[in-house]
C-alpha cells in the first residue's frame, strides 16, 4: 500500500517570522489593510510505498520531521496521511 504524506512546517508562533512580515507589508502596500497575521512556511509532499499500516507511516513521518524536515528549536510541523489507490 502507498501513502501520500503532506507535511507543513512553520516557525513557532512565539518566533517573529521575517519573511512573513515582508510578505504582509507587501500585501498592505497593495491595499489589503486587514491582514492581522501572516506566516511563510514550507510544504513538503512525499510518497511512502509498500507500507501496510497507517500507524507505521505516521511513526516514520514523525521521526523524519524531528530529524530533518523541521528544526524543532524554531519550527512546528503538521502532516496529513492519505491512502493512495
Amino acid at each position: 500500500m502507498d501513502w501520500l504524506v503532506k507535511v507543513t512546517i512553520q516557525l513557532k508562533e512565539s518566533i517573529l517570522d521575517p519573511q512573513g512580515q515582508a510578505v504582509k507589508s507587501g500585501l498592505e502596500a497593495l491595499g489589503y489593510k486587514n491582514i492581522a497575521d501572516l506566516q511563510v512556511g514550507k510544504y513538503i509532499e512525499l510518497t511512502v510505498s509498500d507500507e501496510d499500516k497507517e500507524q507505521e507511516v505516521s511513526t516514520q513521518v514523525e521521526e523524519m520531521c524531528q530529524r530533518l524536515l523541521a528544526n524543532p528549536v524554531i519550527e512546528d510541523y503538521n502532516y496529513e496521511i492519505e491512502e493512495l489507490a
Partner: protein
Amino acid sequence: MKFAVISFPGSNCDQDVCHVTGEVLQVATEILRHDVRQDLTDYDTVILPGGFSYGDYLRSGAIARFSPIMEDVINYAEAGGLVLGICNGFQILLEAGLLPGAMKVNDSVKFVCRQVAITVESSETAFTGGLTRGETLQMPVAHQEGNYYIDPAGLEQLKADDQIVFRYLNQEENPNGSLADIAGVCNQEKNVLGLMPHPERASEKILGSEDGKKIFASLLDYLSSREES
C-alpha cells in the same frame, strides 16, 4: 600541528580557510571530503568553512549535517577536539546539535555582504584566549540566514555559562537581527565555536582587515602551549 577543513558540496570558503591557515599561518592544512569517514583524532582543529552546502535547501546546514564525515566530527567534538564553524559551518554545527540555538532568515530578508564590527565577549575559548573581552574586531559577513535565535531559557543559560563569544558592536552593526546581537557562540565545554563573520576573509592587510587573524593566532598560541605542556 595539523588542521582539517571539511569540504561539503557547495562549500566555497574551504580554499580561503586553507590559504589562511596553510599559507599565512604556515600550519599543515588538509581539505577532507564530506562523504568519506575519517579518523580525526590526529588533527588539532577541525574547521567547517562557509558556503552554501547542498544549496542551502530545506534549511542552511540541515542536509550537510548528515554527511558521513559529520559522525566523525561529532565524535571528535564530544572527545574534546577543537571545532570551528564559520558562517555555513556555524549553521551546520547548530543543525548537528553541537551548538545550541538555530538560524532564521535575516530580518531584512536579504543576503547581507559587508564589513561589520564585532566585540569579543569571552576570552575563555581556545579561539579567543589571546583576545581581550570588549575588544572590537572588523570582519566581513556574507549570509542570508544569520538571524540567531534561542529561547529565553537558552539565552539565560548562554549568559550564565559565558557561551556568547562574539556580539555585533550594536544594533546598527547587527546585519541580521540576531537575538541579543549574537554573532558567535560556543558549547558549554568551550571546544566548539561557531560564528557568522568570516575571519579567513580578514587575515591579510590587502583584504582590508587583519582582525580575523587574531582568532587563528589565539588558536595557535593555545595549541603551542598545549604541545609544550
